[in-house]
């Protein structure tokens, strides 16, 4: 028993640990990369340099302090993002831009290397070994064009890589001009009748399925309770409780227990109404021997306990 408790405690602690680590660095993604910046975004020092956009794909905050950026597979720890910077974290579905100025003394968001066409950019975990994400930069990438990851699919959690003539550093990489579902529905179903009809049908179907399943569970339970069928003897008159049998049972109970049965039922009801007994089953009241019922305890009459 003690061993089970220890195993249970370890399992619970492990589960708690898992939940703490659930939102981690693997949710980060290199969202967009621009190598040659001649007419685009200007950094905090008034200069135009290449940039790297990191994107948090999760719905929780991710700290990226301690991660590495590199364009050299043999040196994955090329640029270390400072852990001490409190701004080194990304909110849900947010992005951050690092300038590849080649001078990391300019701040947290300035890398110590410059990007080159034809190289591969790596985002590395804080262990310095695990590659979280990587992007291959085409050798012929024109100036002021970026390599971008565009969200695709219903969940928008999958991404396709393509060259983008209109870079969007720090902004959503998808199609911002795309119509929302609500707008599309409003155009296709202006009065909402189709949606209403579909929705009512789905709700009915879902609850119909539920009612069938609950009905089936109930029937299975009833069958289980009935148990295997026993061959009835002729003496029981096909299981019918005739007045004669009822009278016989009543006489037997009366001679066997006298008024004690009624007293027991009254006690059980009293206990139930006072909240002393949990109704384990519907229509069933359980009588349990009380551990502190000392009404018949002779020692209660003593003024002093015998030595």
């Amino acid at each position: 028993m003690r061993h089970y408790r220890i195993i249970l405690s370890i399992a619970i602690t492990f589960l708690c640990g898992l939940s703490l680590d659930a939102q981690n660095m693997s949710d980060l993604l290199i969202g967009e990369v621009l190598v040659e910046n001649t007419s685009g975004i200007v950094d905090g020092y008034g200069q135009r340099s290449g940039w790297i956009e990191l994107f948090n794909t999760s719905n929780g905050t991710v700290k990226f302090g301690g991660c590495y950026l590199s364009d050299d597979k043999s040196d994955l720890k090329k640029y270390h993002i400072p852990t001490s910077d409190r701004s080194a974290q990304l909110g849900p579905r947010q992005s951050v831009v690092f300038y590849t100025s080649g001078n990391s003394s300019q701040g947290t968001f300035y890398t110590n290397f410059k990007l080159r066409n034809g190289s591969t950019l790596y985002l590395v975990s804080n262990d310095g070994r695990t590659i979280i994400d990587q992007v291959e930069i085409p050798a012929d990438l024109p100036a002021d064009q970026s390599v971008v990851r565009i969200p695709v699919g219903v969940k928008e959690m999958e991404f396709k890589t393509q060259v983008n003539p209109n870079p969007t550093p720090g902004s959503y990489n998808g199609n911002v001009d795309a119509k929302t579902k609500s707008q599309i529905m409003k155009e296709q179903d202006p009065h909402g009748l189709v949606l209403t009809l579909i929705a009512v049908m789905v709700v009915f179907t879902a609850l119909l399925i539920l009612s069938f399943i609950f009905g089936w569970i109930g029937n299975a339970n009833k069958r289980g309770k009935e148990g295997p069928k026993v061959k009835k003897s002729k003496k029981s008159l096909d299981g019918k409780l005739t007045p004669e049998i009822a009278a016989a049972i009543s006489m037997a109970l009366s001679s066997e227990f006298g008024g004690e049965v009624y007293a027991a039922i009254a006690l059980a009801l009293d206990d139930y109404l006072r909240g002393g007994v949990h109704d384990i089953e519907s229509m069933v009241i359980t009588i349990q021997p009380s551990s502190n019922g000392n009404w018949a305890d002779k020692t209660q009459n003593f003024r002093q306990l015998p030595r």
Partner: protein
Amino acid sequence: MSTIIENLKQFWFFTGFANATWQNLAMILIGIVFITIAIKKGWEPLLLVPIGFGMIIGNIPMFPGLNIGVYEDGSVLNTLYQGVKQGWYPPLIFLGIGAMTDFSALISQPRLLLIGAAAQTGIFGAYLLALLLGFDPNQSAYSYMALVPVIQRPIMLALTTKKERLIKMPAPRPVSQREKIIFPIVGFLLTAFIVPSGLPLLGMLFFGNLLKESGVTRRLAETARGPLIDVVTTLIGLTVGASTQADKFLTGNSLKIFLLGLLSFVIATTVGVLFVKFWNLFLKGDRKINPLIGNAGVSAVPDSARVSEVVGREFDPDNHLLMHAMGPNVAGVIGSAVAAGILLGFLG
């Protein structure tokens, strides 16, 4: 002397008298009416008293920027109101409801689930009306939840005959403890797989019920259905009341949304009752359903089920409909979660 007068003037500007508007006074009056109705008539006192007093709190005229109003970030009332805004309170209420509800009637008569489906037309009725009015409804329904007995009773009476109101439904078959324990687990798995969007509400509802039925977590079940639900009901009522601050609440859009919510209740109750009447055409003998439980498909748990019981007993004091009405009531919760999931899928 002039400094003293200047300071007194300043003090005057901070008082409620200097900042009062007729809208504030109107809302305070409504709050007092709510409290009076609750105390004098006994209508939903657990909801109306906190909401009514909350309305008075929220509409005390004040100088803005003192960080005390419900809409001012970081104020005490604002912090408590986050439970409504972020949706923390409803799942806690559902935990308590699960821990206090006996689902025997639903387990023994799963067909009653369909009444809950019929009542969901209220949501879509409101959606159609919202489109007509030119906006999307997205406000919470708590403020008119208190009006459930007021709205539903006349509709139920208008749509049913005396003979129908007297229909006695047979007592549900005895349900074994094993079935009662299986129900919240299987029920949760099925419903959550159909509509994951209803996870917080359904999870808490069925978890609360498991606490009750497992028989081994009595203390937890008692806390959930007792002190916990009382605390949350108090906070939800008070903060919803306080959120009716006149300058935010007495606007055209807010009133339209309130009206839409009200209409969705009317539509849901009407369709629920009519659906049972229609269904009864195909049922015989003691299989017939009392149409007074048709209103319970509205997902106001357990208020609408209680309305069924109260109205049913008005006409036959021995006709207890509460147990039967809890089936459609729970189905209403499941159905509204499904409906919300569909709306999210199509419009989200």
